[in-house]
């Protein structure tokens, strides 16, 4: 019993970490319809910057949020404005290749500057274990779990309760009509891309005390994030959140009972099943795909 409880807790911890990484990806896809293959690399850059700033300024890793989140927000806006927007009227495959190209360029830029070494951000107490009675967790994991709930809740409130949020949803649901309301659609796309990248920036900072970073780190996380985004129903933030928790649990249980080498088989096996039987995602309604195009 204790074992099961502990596996559940660890699964949920891992799941909320995946949720943080996936939320920005699904937001960008849902609103701008761009599949951002460079998403993981923005996270990697965020983790690298966290490492550099904490090491050289000697501050707590979480304090780097103040620099990194605005920086990644601006970076996201620039990518949308100068890379994606000029391709708006070309074939969507061209946009995909553009983000894949951006991803490869970012990885190689980091490889060139920093090599392929692992960098460890100081854990600053975030690797302390907390005894929850039936399970033990790391302080940093609890922070990630709480923050992922705030992030999903905050984004949901932003999208439903604010004028800007409603304009973002309107743009996603009918770009043409949104323009006719007076909404500047290119501006909405820039802001959305910025927010999505800022979200992965938050994830990057919170992950840094727990995980080492190297040029390839983004790749390992983003692959799972794509599974989650599809499973959550392409573009649905709450869908992605629950899908991430499910993947976290699957990861935790298969890792224990089948061995960690088989975790990937289970996760991607589920991914294939979803693509075959419920391509609109576990929570998505089938028709949602109709206005994804």
């Amino acid at each position: 019993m204790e074992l099961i409880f502990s596996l559940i807790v660890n699964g949920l911890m891992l799941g909320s970490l995946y949720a943080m990484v996936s939320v920005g990806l699904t937001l960008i896809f849902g609103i701008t319809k761009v599949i951002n293959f460079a998403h993981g690399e923005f996270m990697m850059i965020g983790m690298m910057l966290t490492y550099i700033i904490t090491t050289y300024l000697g501050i707590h890793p979480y304090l780097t949020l103040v620099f990194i989140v605005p920086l990644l927000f601006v970076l996201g806006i620039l990518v949308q404005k100068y890379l994606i927007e000029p391709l708006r009227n070309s074939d969507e495959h061209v946009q995909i290749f553009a983000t894949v190209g951006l991803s490869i360029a970012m990885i190689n830029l980091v490889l060139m500057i920093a090599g392929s070494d692992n960098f460890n951000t100081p854990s600053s107490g975030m690797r302390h274990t907390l005894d929850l009675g039936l399970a033990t967790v790391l302080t940093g994991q609890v922070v990630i779990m709480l923050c992922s709930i705030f992030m999903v809740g905050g984004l949901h409130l932003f999208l439903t309760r604010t004028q800007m949020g409603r304009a973002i949803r309107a743009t996603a649901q009918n770009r043409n009509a949104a323009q006719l309301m007076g909404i500047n659609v290119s501006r909405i796309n820039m802001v959305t891309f910025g927010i999505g990248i800022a979200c992965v920036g938050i994830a990057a900072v919170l992950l840094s005390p727990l995980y080492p970073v190297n040029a390839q780190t983004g790749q390992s996380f983003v692959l799972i994030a794509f599974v989650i985004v599809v499973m959550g129903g392409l573009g649905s933030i709450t869908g992605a959140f629950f899908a991430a928790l499910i993947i976290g649990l699957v990861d935790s249980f298969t890792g224990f009972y089948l061995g960690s080498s088989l975790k990937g088989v289970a996760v991607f096996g589920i991914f294939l099943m979803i693509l075959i039987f419920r391509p609109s995602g576990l929570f998505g309604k089938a028709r949602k795909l109709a206005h994804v195009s």
Partner: protein
Amino acid sequence: MLRMNNVSSGYGATTILHDVSLEVKKGEVVTIVGGNGAGKTTTLRTLSGLIDTSAGSITFKDEDITHLPAHQVVNRGITLIPEARQLFPEMTVLENIQMGAYRPAAKSRYEQRLEEVLALFPRVKERLHQQAESLSGGEQQMVAIARGMMACPELLIFDEPSLGLAPIVVSQVFDVVKKIAESGTTVLIVEQNVQQTLKVADRAYVIENGRIVMDGQAQELMGNDHIRKAYLGI
């Protein structure tokens, strides 16, 4: 109020409108009639900035708006109610209506305008908290018109408001158009339902193959042989 001077436009290399000139004066109800593919919708899309003008010019209240993007045209006081309603399907009726008041000039008058608009559409008022896509076609058209009115436009443009609606709803739509015009809003309306439209319009333009081929008082055109044969089936 609104002038199109020798406007040409189209999609990519294909020109659809050739040398179109038309005028809408303040307080008028003007209609553009024509068959399928004649260029009616393209004219409206060009006017509202959804597609760019390749030659000629468009002015509104003596200011040039030829190359303004769509969202800036809205800010000048021109609102297009697009064909096929184009609501935001996964938003509530109220949210759709709120989006209509997005332009700054409309935001400040939101409360008062909402009351005025809902008074015109009692059915919409009953369904404010329903998902837009759960409404019937006729109700959706009413929401689309209400949403357009929320922008407090000086010129309100309708693109085929009666398309695909039951006859009883069609006459309700035309009643609303009449009321909007009577309240002082200038109206430009594009329709295939020529007979109904000529009854509410002051003046009309006839468009064929992307060119204006005829224009005049709505009453006169109703008696014109070409119009009667081609559009009224008499």
